[in-house]
Structures are given as C-alpha cells and as structure tokens.
C-alpha cells in the first residue's frame, strides 16, 4: 500500500512534507539494544571464569546456547519493534490538511487530522542541550477544530516547520471563506456571508 492510499489523498492534494521524530532521539534505544545484545556474552564469560566446569557437560552447554540465542532474538525483536514505533510516528503536511499519526505501541495507533485553515497558532519549543545542539524540539499546533491541540514531540528543525505550516495555512485560507474562520477577518479580506 502507498502512503497516498493510507491517508486517502485527494486529487488536488499534494504532500508538502513528511516529518518524523529526530533520528537523534532513537539513539537511547540503540544503546539499550546494544547493552541487551552484550548481556549473554558477558554472562557467558563471567560464568566460564567463575565456574569452569559449568559448561563441560554438553547438556548444560546446549541449554546455555538455546537460552542465549533466544535472548538475542528477543533483543533484536525489541530493537525492531521500537524502530517501527519510531518510524510510524509521522506528521504529514499537505497543502490542504495536517495528519498526525501517532504509533503509541505496536498495537495502539491514533490518527488525527485537521484542515490547515482551522489552525490558529503554531509554536515551537527547543529545550535542553541536545535539542539545541541537534536542532530538534516540540511543535504545538492549536486549532479551532474538534482536536484542539496537536503536540508533535522531537521533530527536527521545529522553527522551520512552524514557518512552513504558517505559510501553508495562509495559502489555504485564501481558498476558504474567511467569514467562517474569523468573525473579524484581517483587513483586505472581503467578508462573504455564508450561503443560506
């Protein structure tokens, strides 16, 4: 299946940007997986040093190999599941709407979307040493729609993204009735009363 099918992309709609969490935020999972993968080897070395006769018996040796092998497969499964959860957390910005796909766990996903013209405020927030160094942070989008607030954590270049969304919002507002969006439209916009 293509992403366009998944989001039911409209004929006039163009995907402007796909945003995933910053790759830097995946490093802790990589480190944890590396520690998990090292555990069987470290334990085997320790056990062999402390109890030299432990792995003399072929049965005990075979059992240790089976347990170690199972543990390594489980560690790789842990890494892969975290990668998929990380990779499926996605913000899709089109020229018409904004879709926030949040993969919470392997079996829990929430998809929220809002039309760009309903967006009232976009704010970016970069806090911390790593976030400042690698330029990633949180993006908060306030809308007038049913889902009032979108919080997208750890996106790369949040300021650039905020500008892009605001520009696209401006563009999208031109195609919608300003009377519905703003009771007091900005100067220069003609108030068109809603059709009866």
């Amino acid at each position, binding site marked *: *299946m*293509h*992403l*366009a*099918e*998944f989001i039911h992309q409209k004929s006039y709609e163009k995907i402007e940007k796909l945003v995933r969490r910053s790759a830097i935020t995946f490093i802790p999972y990589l480190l944890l997986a590396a520690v998990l993968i090292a555990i069987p080897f470290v334990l085997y070395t320790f056990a062999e040093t402390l109890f030299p006769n432990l792995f003399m018996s*072929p*049965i*005990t040796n*075979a*059992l240790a*190999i*089976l347990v170690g*092998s*199972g543990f*390594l*497969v*489980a560690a*790789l*499964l842990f*890494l*892969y*599941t975290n*990668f*998929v959860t990380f*990779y*499926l957390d*996605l913000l899709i910005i089109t020229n018409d709407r904004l879709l926030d*796909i949040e*993969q919470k766990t*392997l079996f829990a996903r929430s998809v929220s979307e809002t039309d760009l013209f309903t967006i009232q405020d976009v704010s970016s927030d970069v806090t911390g040493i790593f976030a400042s160094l690698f330029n990633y942070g949180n993006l908060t989008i306030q809308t007038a729609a049913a889902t009032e607030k979108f919080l997208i954590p750890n996106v790369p270049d949040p300021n650039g993204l905020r500008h892009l969304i605001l520009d696209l919002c401006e563009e999208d507002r031109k195609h919608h009735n300003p009377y519905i969006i703003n009771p007091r439209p900005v100067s220069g916009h003609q108030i068109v009363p809603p059709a009866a």
Partner: protein
Amino acid sequence: MVIVPFYLFLALYAGFLFVCGIFFAINLLHLVHTGTLTTIALLVSALIFGAVALILLGTWQLLPDIGWSEPITLFNFDSGNSLGF
C-alpha cells in the same frame, strides 16, 4: 523428581521463536500497511532479519552432536546429579 527428554527444551525454544516470528511479521506488516516501507525501513528490516538469521545459523552450528532424546532429571532433591531446578 521429574524426568523429561532434552528435546522438550528444543520444543520450548522453537515455540519462543515462533512467537517472536509472529511479532516480527506484525512489525513488517505495519510498515507495509502504512505505506512507509521506504529505503531506510527496508534497510533496517533487512539488517534485523539478517542478524536473526545469523543467530539461528550460529545456534545450529553450535549444537551439532547433542543427544536430544537424552532424559534430564528436574527437581531432583535426593542427589546433586541434575540441572538443579
């Protein structure tokens, strides 16, 4: 005192691998279903599946001459000649 054949542990291992295999497949299906099986996702998937294949191959190589039908005594409190469970 409980005596079980050693292949019971192999069966447990196979069962564990089967469950892990289901989870690996669900992960991959998630990527395919959401249309996000991009080059990076494909590369990571290939690396992970390659590593799993290497582990299984290594396990197979390290277990050549094991008497799988050999009985093992579990919970033998009378003597120390058991796995000591």
